[in-house]
Structures are given as C-alpha cells and as structure tokens.
C-alpha cells in the first residue's frame, strides 16, 4: 500500500498532477464548457460530485470483488459499467429529491458519464495503490484541480472574447493557444512534495 500522507496527495491532485493541465484528462469540458464562468463552475462541481461517488463505489468493488477473483484486468470495463449506472442513479435521486440541483446541473450530469477524468481518477487511485481514504482525498484533489483549471481558463476566455485577435486565430485556435499557455504555468509545480 502506498504510504503518502493525505495532505501531499491533496496538493498533488490539485496542483502538481492537475488533471486537466498536467495529465490532459477531461479536455473536452475544459474547452467546451469554459466560455462562461457560471457554467464552468457548475460543470466542475458536478464533476467533483460524480468523481467522489465513483471513487467511493469503485474502490471497494475492485478491492473486494475483482482482486480476490483474480479479475484485476477487467477494471476498465467494470468501472465504466459502474460509473454509467451511478450517474443514472444520481440523476434519478436528484430529480426526485433535490429538484433545484437537478435543474442547475442540467445537461452536465449525463455528459459526465463519458468524461475520461472520472474514469481516469478511479483507475489512477488503483494504479498508485492508494487506500480507501487516500483514494477519496486524491479524488477530492483531482476534482478541485479540475475546478481550478476550469475557473482560471474561463477567466482567460472571457477576456479573449473582447480582445483584438487576428481573423485567422479567432475562435478555437486562440483558445488552444491560451490553453497551452495556461498549462505551461502548471509546469512550475512539478517536483513539489517529490510527487
């Protein structure tokens, strides 16, 4: 079992191994939903929520069902199955009991089913040999890192909207240039806590 402390794990997920900017997972929503600050925050909170739920369920299933049966190699298939069902279940429960949250999350909730960041964090937790608590903290860090990246990039993009950009670079090209610059800034965190 990995013996890294909880705080370095949290910071690691948040900054050093930032999911979007260092590991390049979850780029889809990063480019797609970062146009407005409001929707970026909404999407990120939904991702954090689903990530936590997914980790809470996949880790025990992997450790107590798949490993004893010698089926560790099936983790990707099993995790996709679990995450997809989980998102459905969350959607049903929210629609019934927390209608305002359901309305606020809107289309983002089903979209998250196919978000590779969610699958990525559950698999990385296993690969790094984290315990249950460590996995949950790492997931929180990863989700927080996703939120951080989304909010920062939404701020950059709101400025880009009004900037005087040459015709050929307008739209996606300038967005990709900005994304690469933002991710370069996160290289500065490499090596922190020896992660």
């Amino acid at each position, binding site marked *: 079992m990995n013996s890294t402390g909880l705080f370095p794990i949290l910071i690691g997920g948040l900054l050093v191994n930032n999911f979007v900017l260092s590991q390049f997972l979850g780029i889809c929503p990063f480019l797609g939903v970062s146009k407005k600050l409001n929707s970026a925050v909404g999407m990120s909170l939904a991702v954090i929520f689903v990530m936590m739920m997914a980790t809470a369920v996949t880790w025990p*299933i992997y450790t107590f*069902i*798949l490993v004893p*049966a*010698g*089926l560790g190699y*099936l983790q990707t*298939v*099993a995790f996709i*199955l*679990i995450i997809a*069902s989980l998102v*459905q*279940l969350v959607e*049903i*429960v929210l*629609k*019934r*009991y927390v209608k305002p949250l359901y*309305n606020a999350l809107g289309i983002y909730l089903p979209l998250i089913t196919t978000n590779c960041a969610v699958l990525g964090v559950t698999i990385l937790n296993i690969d790094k040999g984290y315990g249950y608590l460590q996995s949950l903290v790492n997931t929180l860090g990863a989700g927080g890192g996703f939120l951080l990246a989304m909010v920062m990039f939404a701020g950059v993009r*709101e*400025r880009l*909207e*009004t*900037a*005087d950009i040459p015709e050929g670079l307008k739209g996606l090209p300038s967005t990709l240039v900005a994304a690469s610059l933002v991710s370069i800034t996160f290289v500065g965190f490499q090596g922190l806590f020896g992660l």
Partner: protein
Amino acid sequence: MFEVILAIIILTALGLVFGLILAFASAVMAVPVDEKVEALRSALPGANCGACGYSGCDGYAEAMARGEAQPGLCTPGGQDVAEITASILGVESAGVQEKKAQVKCGGCDQYINTKLEYRGIATCAAANQFYGGEPSCSYGCLGYGDCAAACEYGAITVENGLAIINKDLCVGCTKCVSVCPKSIIEMVPGSAKGIVRCSSHDKGAVVRKACSVGCIGCMKCTKVCEYDAIHVSNFLAKIDPEKCVGCGACADSCPTGCINIFGYQPKKQKAAV
C-alpha cells in the same frame, strides 16, 4: 476455463445488480409528470429565451400548470401561443402581455462622474473588464452601445453616453438584456406607467458622490405613494407596475429626479446638488 467463466459470471452479476438497482430506483422514485405540463410545454415555442420571467419554457409550463403564472407571458409565441395555452388551462385568453426593455440608468455624461479615462476597445464588454469602465458608479451605463449593436430593430440609441430605448420600436426580444455587462436593462410590462432610472444598490452617500441623478434610497417616494406601488429595498426604489397608476407623486418628491413617469413632467425641479 474456470477463470473465463468466473469473469463472465462476475461481470454479469455486476451488471444485473446495477440494472436492478436502477430499475427499482426509477420505479420507486419516478416523478409523476403532469399531463397539463406536457401539453403546455409542447405549445410553447421552446426557445428558452426567458422573456416570460421563468427559467425557460419548462419552468413557465410548470408555473402555468400550478396556476402561478398567467398564459400570455410568452412574447415570442405571440397571440397564437397565448390562446392555445389559455385553452389548455381552460381560462379566457387575455392576449399577450407585452414586455419592453428599459434602461435603468439616467446617468448621461453631464450627470455621472468618471473615475478613469478609458481608451481601449470601444465595447461595453471590454470596458467593463477594465476596472468596471469609466463611470464612478459601478451600476452606470457605459455608453459604448453593445445593446444598440445587439438590437435588430434599431430601437436603441446612445445619446451622451447613455443608452435610450425607443418603446415603440422595442419588440421585447431581450437580446439587449443579456448583452449588457452591467445588467441594467430590465424588461417591464408594456403597460407600466413609469420606472426608476437607477440600478445602484450603493448607499446614498456613495451614489451622491458618483452621480447626481441616482437613487439614494431616501424612501420619500414610498411615503408619498398612495397606492403602495413603490418600495425601496437594498437602497434602490422599484415601482410595482401592477399597482402604479402613474400619478407622478413619487417623481415630484424625488430629490434627485431619478423616477421617470412616462409622459409626466415633475412639478418640483431637481434640487441643486
């Protein structure tokens, strides 16, 4: 061979368990859908523009089914939608209640003070990102005419750094409302008799320093109104269009002259500042 069968069994079992949980959950926690809501929803245009004041067509359909909203608030749908929705609800159609955009700021160049000189890109969106733009008042019209550019009906002009909306040309599409970075354009019913031309929630003293025609929240208007139609909340007066009869008493009493009753000239001129 045993491993292969075990893998198949375990994955099938996982799938089955989750499938059963989902089936059980959707059966137990199903939200009953009101047939009326469905019918109303399909009658609405589905543009989700928000002109009715609810969160999209779904929200409006639900509010109508609950009896909280009147049919006819849907401006884009027009007369047809108003009649169809009214017939679904089983009530008499009162026609479409028109809504017109109004700028809630009266601070043209001669009244409002500036805190900086802005020479960047001449759009409100860009100016707003630079420390909130030129006006000292953070709720003040920037006057670069983003709203005028968004208006497809030529209803908005910018005069002396203040956007002015021509009521007769406005069709109530709400494009200007969403484009204004200061959020100072509001939709008011076409039958409204007047409006407070200020959006500032700052305290009176702060407003006075920034602008000579801002609402300072003194509540004089609330006291003189005989119809309980004007109220001050959070240092800003607001007219209730359903109660206002347009008598003009509030406009007469306002020390800064920020209340605009359409077609009414206040008796007492604006006090010297």
